[in-house]
């Protein structure tokens, strides 16, 4: 930054303040004398390197993997069920068509043999006898 460089050239960045002699040597002891008593309480510090902290990324990765597996299984299950429903509807239609073709065949045979319902009944009842 051009303006910053101009200020630096003009004023410098050094410390322009000073303190009375021995100020920092005495400061700590003076302050500790003034420091009030506080209840002796143990502080609960959050542990950055605790087990939970270390395991957190692993747990996140595991959760993502589980979600991916779940989605994959769900996707393939859906595909399989769609295929099955397509297959079953196809078989029903095949079965239906085969039944209708059998009826047609019987009708055509009956027409060819010039048999009416009475003849068929007589034929069937004589077979049973």
């Amino acid at each position: 930054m051009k303006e910053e460089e101009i200020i630096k050239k003009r004023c410098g960045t050094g410390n322009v303040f000073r303190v009375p002699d021995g100020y920092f040597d005495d400061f700590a002891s003076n302050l500790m004398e003034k420091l009030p008593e506080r209840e002796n309480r143990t502080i609960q510090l959050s542990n950055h390197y605790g087990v939970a902290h270390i395991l957190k990324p692993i747990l996140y990765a595991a959760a993502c993997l589980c979600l991916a597996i779940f989605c994959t299984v769900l996707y393939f299950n859906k595909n399989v069920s769609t295929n099955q429903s397509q297959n079953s509807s196809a078989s029903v239609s095949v079965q239906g068509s085969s039944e209708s073709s059998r009826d047609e065949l019987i009708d055509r045979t009956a027409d060819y043999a010039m048999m009416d319902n009475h003849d068929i009944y007589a034929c069937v009842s004589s077979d049973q006898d």
Partner: protein
Amino acid sequence: MIAVDEKHLIKQLADSVTQRSAFGLVVKQYSELLYWQIRRIVLNHEDTNDVLQNTFIKAWNNLDTFRNDSKLSTWLYRIAINESLDFVRKQKNEISIERDTDATMSISDILMADEYFDGNEIQAQLMQAVSKLPEAQRTVFNMRYFDGMKYSEISKVLSTSEGALKASFHIAVQKISKFFQSID
């Protein structure tokens, strides 16, 4: 400055038996760092001394709030800056608007007369220009320009995004440049 392992120091601070002695080490380790940070905002040695003491007393009384989520130095920096800005705010409120204008205009003169100011007139004028900046810009400028702190470090202390800090610093530099152009 005495270098003490921060991890070890924090453990001692957490223990009620070693708390007080550990805090003594904290004061020894960080008093100088915090002093200069406060001094650049407050400007006067006596006032800086008061604010620095208040900073450590506040840290001591609120030791329970330190959760080791940030570095000890970052936590102390934050308290020191808040205390300094509070002090300046109170000081401004105490002075009438008329006197405030005079006082702001004469900051470089006050500094030149201060026995604990080692700078020249231009440096006193820089401190005057910095003191005229809004709080956020002043704090960022001090930390970046004088202490050479990285934006990532300042971001942790001030809990502000790096982008916002860069913008604040840029505006601060522009204002200071204009200030110098106006007095040239």
